[in-house]
């Protein structure tokens, strides 16, 4: 049944003290922006303990999808207006329950259990919460007899009587949780075409980070298809924040120089040291407060503890590694949920085999790498790569209902 409004409940935002209003303001802004495309006639209204999305006559599934995906929202309730009157509520409750039982999610069966959760916020209302719950329960069970289970029913009828209106619902969803994107500040995500980095970016967004992203492109050794894939991954992340900037760094000359002048087994770590330095420079110029990477401990040769130490000091900025201790299978599950997995596994090379040594070192030593870098014009190469960086503006990919 088509709801009249979506009630968005805050998660830990509720715990914030004096600056909660700032968080809520950012959240409302994010929602308004995302709804523009997904449900143009939906309106966002801020209440003291929640945000409401009033649905117009247009498509509303897009609005629900936006609400469920937006960081900072713990639960989304699909609510129906009802007159502030017990008889009206008693009439409507069975109809909602009927629709829920017929929906593919519930499907009335022998094991369906039921409860009512009523809340009276408006003390002028004629009935108290427990009594209201009992009355509505009786009205529903008279038509649809089911066992009652107040702890964990498979179907819950919610009811809220508030001064500004009363609502009933049977459908509510778990939201994305976390904090509104942007409430923590801006960070720079090192984005590749792989599975991990988009997930890392999403987790950072969920903790309130707005993202810019940086990609290291090596034409002609890596096809343009790979960069298109990165753009598409970036567009998914852009969904949570309206748009996202992708810095596409021309990395070819650096790889060529390293390959020509340095020992093969160190090349991968040397590339990474350059990537960190460049990312840090870009982050500084763009006022990003931290770097975000998809590194995961021990996943590949360059992500051993020894080798993470070798890159760690190169950024003046704090480096966030949300996936550091997360298993690959879990990362893959998250990527699927985020919608980036199928993009990431498209078979385009993200690094030319030419530049990957047969046996890269798993235990790099800082002084040896520094010695290797003596052979290179490090600053000159970085300047040139930054000079040739393209700035690409990414818009959100379509939100699929």
């Amino acid at each position, binding site marked *: 049944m088509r709801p009249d409004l979506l009630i968005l409940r805050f998660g830990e935002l509720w715990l914030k003290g004096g600056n909660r209003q700032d968080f809520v303001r950012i959240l409302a802004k994010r929602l308004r922006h995302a709804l523009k495309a997904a449900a143009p006639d939906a309106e966002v209204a801020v209440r003291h303990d929640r945000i409401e999305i009033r649905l117009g006559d247009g498509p509303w599934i897009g609005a629900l999808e936006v609400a469920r995906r937006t960081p900072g929202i713990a639960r989304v309730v699909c609510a129906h207006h009802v007159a502030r009157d017990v008889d009206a509520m008693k009439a409507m409750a069975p109809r909602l329950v009927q629709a829920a039982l017929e929906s593919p999610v519930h499907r009335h069966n022998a094991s369906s259990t039921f409860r009512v959760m009523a809340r009276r916020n408006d003390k002028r209302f004629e009935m108290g919460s427990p009594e209201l719950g009992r009355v509505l329960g009786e009205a529903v069970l008279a038509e649809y007899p089911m066992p009652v289970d107040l702890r964990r029913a498979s179907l819950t009828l919610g009811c809220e009587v508030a001064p500004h209106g009363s609502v009933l619902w049977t459908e509510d969803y778990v939201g994305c949780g976390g904090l509104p994107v942007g409430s923590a500040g801006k960070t720079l995500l090192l984005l590749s075409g792989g599975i991990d980095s988009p997930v890392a970016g999403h987790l950072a967004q969920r903790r309130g980070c707005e993202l810019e992203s940086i990609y290291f492109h090596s*034409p*002609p050794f890596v*096809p343009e298809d790979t960069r298109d894939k990165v753009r598409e991954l970036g567009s998914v992340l852009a969904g949570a924040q309206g748009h996202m900037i992708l810095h596409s760094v021309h990395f070819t000359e650096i790889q060529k120089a390293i390959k020509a002048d340095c020992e093969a087994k160190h090349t991968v770590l040397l590339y990474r040291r350059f990537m960190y330095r460049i990312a840090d420079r870009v982050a500084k110029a763009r006022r990003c407060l931290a770097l975000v990477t998809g590194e995961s401990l021990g996943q590949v040769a360059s992500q051993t503890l020894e080798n993470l130490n070798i890159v760690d000091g190169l950024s003046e900025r704090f480096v966030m590694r949300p996936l550091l201790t997360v298993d690959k299978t879990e990362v893959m599950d998250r990527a699927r949920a985020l919608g980036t997995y199928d993009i990431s596994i498209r078979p385009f090379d993200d690094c*030319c085999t*030419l530049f990957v040594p047969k046996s890269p070192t798993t235990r790099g030593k800082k002084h040896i790498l520094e010695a290797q870098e003596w052979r290179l014009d490090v600053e000159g190469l970085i300047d040139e790569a930054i000079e040739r960086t393209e700035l690409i503006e990414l818009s959100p990919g379509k939100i699929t209902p």
Partner: protein
Amino acid sequence: MLYLDHAATTPIDEAIRAGMLERFETRFANPSSAHGLGRQARKELEHARHRIAELIGAESGQIVFTGGGTESLGLAVLGSAGDAPARIAISSVEHSAISESAYWLKERLGWQLDEMPVDELGVLRPQTVAQMVTSQTRIVAVMMVNNEVGAINDLASIAQIVRRQAPRAKIIVDAVQAFAKLPLDVGALDVDLMAFTSHKIHGPKGIGGLWARNVSALRPVFLGGGQEAGLRGGTQCAVLAWGFGEASDLQSQAPKHELGRRCFELLKSAVPDLELIGPDFGALRAPHICSVHVPGIPTGPLLNSLSEAGVCCSAGSACTRSSRQDFSKVLLAMQRSPEEGAFLRFSVGRTTVEAELAQAATIFGQCVAELRAVYAT
């Protein structure tokens, strides 16, 4: 942009494009409709069929319009296969339209599949056919011109052998790269089915043709309203057919050129150790396909840097691009390996001019030199 990928597809001829746009307004009617507009569309459709038939020495009634080369070949193979499993022989370098249909017969219907190897030039030798075709063989499929290396097969000799050794076999010819470019006469050539398409000759995409000596012997692969002799039900498009007919005439009347050969000469002057893949230009090679081997560097980066510099060409066939076959099946069958270096296909069309080839050759030389410098270290 220097477009040298005409074996993949061609830009539509300017006059055909204009003529089609006009006809989308005047010839939109369903050719099966009985009213005047329908009759006009039907006339256009049948006239196009007639022009194409005439070009290859066939009767109009032997031409079936399809959606393109792949559909024609699929209809030829699957439509010729009877209910009882038998043997099918195909050359090892056939287009996936043939090979995938043949694998399907093998996997799903229990046919025996014989893949006939080609020689190092990509040519299917008649003696190989003699060794592999038996009296049990019911279908033999051979391409006239190989799409990746331009090798021309001696169809007359191959057909003679098949008739002798496998009198019940249907001979299917993939003439997609040859149609309207090489002389084709189905009266003189003793084969049963021949497939061709419009978009390789500056015609529109979305239409191809299948010539069948005996149309009624074919079975449709899907059913519909009986159009195209019952072999391809569905509303016919007179506009596409007109474009195809026009393209066939324009292509067959175009002066024969030597631009493929010229392309190779210019590329070789830029990269002296360049090797031509397939037969030398002349009677055994289609004049528009110039496939080359560049020693010492891999294909991907070279293709990318050419693309970046505005030169459009292919690694092997454009058709297998998305199926993640890293190396061309055709080149493998010719005993080549990716370790040898880069393999590229340049292919010219009616609109190609020599100045473009010279420009492309200069860029090619630069790209190869740059990459060789990197790979030498």
